[in-house]
């Protein structure tokens, strides 16, 4: 379980996350929608441990982030518009990332690439936007994380790609992962999320 307790974050006197109290349960898909700058991405960064709260805490399975641990273990994240190393192919990119945690095998890497429909040996710099996004998804799931954070995961994907991502989300949920995804549009979330949340000016509301 992920718990945000009185979590606030200010940047240069501007409050981007405002006293958020919310618990994300295991094995549940959460969708967060809101306009640009509403704080969606910042909330994902807060859960990922990439930002430090101005006040409040994040607990993951009762372990406090930034106190007991620096980063959640078993976390997969898709950062918006992220790109991987352009001079490597998809497999090599994931292989390099796997060296940090050393939990994924070559077979895990191949499986995840297969799941996102990438079997190309092309270097990433020759990928289309859609292929890059598929690779981003693969890097988020190949280590079988317990928490998956997806920032605009369907960006640049065609209809088939979107369906594929939703299937992956469904499969990961069945395996017990907690999934939080963000988007600008509420209608994108309805078919895939168990719980839909709205982010507005740093505040989080359940619908």
């Amino acid at each position: 379980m992920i718990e945000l307790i009185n979590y606030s974050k200010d940047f240069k006197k501007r409050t981007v996350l405002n006293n958020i109290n919310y618990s994300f349960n295991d094995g549940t898909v959460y969708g967060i929608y809101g306009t640009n700058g509403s704080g969606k991405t910042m909330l994902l960064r807060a859960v990922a441990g990439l930002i430090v709260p101005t006040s409040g805490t994040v607990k993951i399975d009762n372990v406090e982030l930034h106190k007991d641990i620096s980063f959640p273990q078993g976390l997969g994240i898709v950062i918006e518009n992220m790109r991987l190393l352009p001079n490597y192919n998809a497999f090599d990119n994931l292989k390099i990332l796997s060296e940090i945690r050393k939990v994924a095998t070559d077979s895990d890497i191949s499986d995840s690439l297969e799941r996102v429909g990438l079997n190309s040996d092309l270097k990433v710099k020759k990928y289309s936007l859609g292929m890059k996004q598929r690779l981003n998804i693969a890097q988020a799931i190949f280590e079988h994380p317990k928490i998956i954070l997806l920032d605009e995961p369907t960006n640049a994907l065609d209809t088939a790609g979107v369906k594929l991502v939703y299937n992956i989300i469904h499969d990961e949920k069945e395996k017990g992962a907690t999934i939080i995804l963000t988007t600008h549009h509420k209608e994108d979330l309805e078919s895939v999320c168990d719980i839909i949340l709205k982010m507005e000016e740093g505040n989080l509301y359940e619908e």
Partner: protein
Amino acid sequence: MKRSNYLIIIILTLLQTAFFYQQGCDAIAFISGIDYTNINIIYLMVYSAPIVGLLIVSMDSSKMWLIDYGQLVISRCRKRNKALVVSLKKISENTLLLVAAQCLVNYLILQMRQISQFDCEIIIVAVLCHYLTINALLLLQHYFELTYDAPVSLIITLVILYFSYFIDMLIEINFGKSTLATLIFFPNIIFINFDRLSTLLCLWAMIINLILVFISQKKLKKIDII
């Protein structure tokens, strides 16, 4: 050497000192907007677990993806103070390049003590040997009051470039002749034609860097990874 150059060296060293204290991370490797060198450093970082410290500085919007990539890498780390990503667009690349070299050396020295992978050990030993060689030359220059003329400087530069290529081959990645080493040696290439004071400043900077590495290891300051 012009008085302004002394000033630049002092400011750069102080800047680095400030970074160490401000960020409180184990060691910092600056990455400038040079092609491939960025990738080499990330490659080194990823392959030399446990990760010690990384500060990605992207002055160039086309390299901003490195910031995101850095975040991705960091999100996989166990300890927060082991990695750090910051974007500093407003500082000129030339200014940072000088600081970069010294910071990178700190990073590599620290890595020396924590290397777990054989390949990386070879690379770092090679890089450090080259670095020490050049500084030995500086010491000799100072001790014997030698003055290197232009051809000697050119030869030294070519030797450095050769070793860069050698390092690239050791890394076995197809990035051509780019050059972790050249980045490291860059200030030395400049200092080589400087006088005694600049040599002393360079050595002073090295000593300060080493002390700071050990001091800053004990510190942990929390900072946002943007």
